[in-house]
């Protein structure tokens, strides 16, 4: 908690790292043919080294937002600009293909391959990213799963499986980390432990990240900036800068103060 170790939130002047510029996305129901506008001329910027949390009720397009950035969905209009480590930009827009940064993604479910060991799961992500698979052991040790590396995911607890998913996301040395309701499928105590673990990993090696959650407390605890989203089409209802140094304590009254502000904005 002392000032020397604490990392400050990145300066507001840091370069834009992820930019959604006038993005539109319409879903057409395959059954009814009904068109639903999820995003219309939507703009959002995540600066380098910043962890931005997007909070909103379900159905506000949070997950779609994450899918757009991850390249799992293509925008219908507008463009998504992604900077890489050297500051070069990759542009994703309709018809421009799907340039992708090296991503680490933690989904709500661990999404591990059940038929191979935990270690092998991490190794596959490493080799696919062109990295040395030997890094898997270290990544698993960092999340406290060293002893479980050679087990099948199915023998691990839910929390352990999600730890493995976190290890995989950090192991690939991602330019961008995407967190999609990462701890909402876990019990409260496990979720709290994993949030602390995530903070620890983040403090050790800060990256740029986008966290999508419906939990205002999680957003206030983890993020540098919190964006409250309103749905259909999505628009930014409110924005908060958390501005607290890391490591933070989940009991810090200032976190609760931020949490209350976010709650009020969610209304």
């Amino acid at each position, binding site marked *: 908690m002392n000032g020397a170790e604490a990392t400050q939130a990145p300066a507001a002047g840091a370069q834009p790292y992820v930019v959604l510029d006038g993005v539109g996305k319409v879903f057409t129901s395959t059954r009814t043919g009904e068109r639903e506008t999820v995003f219309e001329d939507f703009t959002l910027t995540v600066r380098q080294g910043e962890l931005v949390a997007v909070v909103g009720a379900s159905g506000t397009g949070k997950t779609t937002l994450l899918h757009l950035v991850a*390249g799992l969905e293509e925008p219908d209009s507008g463009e998504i600009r992604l900077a890489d480590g050297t500051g070069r930009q990759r542009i994703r827009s309709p018809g421009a293909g799907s340039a992708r940064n090296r991503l680490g*993604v933690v*989904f709500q479910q661990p*999404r591990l391959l059940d038929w191979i060991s935990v270690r092998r799961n991490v190794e*596959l992500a490493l080799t*696919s990213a062109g990295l040395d698979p030997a890094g898997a052991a270290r990544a698993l040790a960092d999340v406290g799963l060293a002893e479980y590396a050679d*087990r099948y995911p199915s*023998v691990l607890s839910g929390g352990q499986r999600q730890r493995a998913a976190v290890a*995989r996301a950090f192991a690939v040395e991602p330019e961008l980390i995407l967190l999609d309701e990462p701890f909402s499928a876990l019990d409260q105590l496990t979720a709290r432990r994993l949030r602390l673990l995530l903070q620890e990993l983040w403090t050790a090696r800060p990256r740029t990240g986008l966290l999508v959650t419906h939990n205002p407390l999680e957003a206030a605890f983890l993020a540098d900036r919190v964006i409250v989203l309103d749905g259909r089409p999505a628009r930014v209802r409110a924005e908060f800068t958390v501005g607290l140094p890391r490591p933070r304590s989940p009991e810090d009254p200032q976190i609760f103060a931020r949490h209350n502000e976010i709650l009020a904005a969610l209304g």
Partner: protein
Amino acid sequence: MTHHTTAMAEVRPATAAPPPGAGSGTPPATARTRRTLSRRVRAFGRGALPVAAFLLVLVGGWQIVAVRSGSVLIPDVPAVWSALTDIVTQPLFYDSLGATLLRVGLGFALAFVTAVVVGIAMGRVEFVRRFFEPAVLIGLTVPGLVWALLCVIWFGVSLTNPVVAVALSAAPALTLSIYQGTRATDSALREMAHVYRFSVWTSLRYLWLPSLLPALFSGARLGLSLAWKVIVLVEMFGMSSGVGYELNNQFAAQNVAGVLSWTLLFAAVLAVLEYGVLQSLERRLGRWRKATAV
């Protein structure tokens, strides 16, 4: 799907389990293997007793009918047995069996490769699905006899004839079950593979094939059962070797005991392949599921 296969895997070994103490390569008898052994003995009793009873009724009933009728068209059990042992002791049996298995093996391999490619493509691409759907439906309805006749006409006494006939009869069932398996493959895992940039090869090896395994096995069973039927027909009409050809010879000689013996032996070989090879392969590849049960 998972539950289904595990349930089957639990039931099946009952009939296939070797008698206790068989298998020369058994690992040292730790407490655990002893436990599984005694479980196997119980399972053997549960599964083998009804089978033994059925065989007893069949053989006994047959003998009674044969003796009562006194007809040469219904040979009694000793006559069938002596014909059977006669066949087994001759090299002709092994040559014929080898020829038939080779043809089925090649045809099935052809069907398998085609079905994996087409089935996965059907599951992924709407156009491909619509394109191949009629072909699969037609393929499933056309009787094996028709494939056999057509292939004999087109390819004559070459190896192509049985291979194509087997492939044509097995591929539709295999394709259908692989297509269904592809549809059922977890889209969440596909997204994971996408964001971590799995190569086509990595996806195939670590995502698609393991996910499709249950579908592959059920498709393989169905496809093989169709393949056996068609291979016998092809060999009857258009080949000069193989189990079907020998069956036809026995038929021409009006040797009922011979027909029965060849049929019984062929069925026995199939049972060994099904229970011995397919099932142990399925259990081996499904080891990770066992980890959950421990």
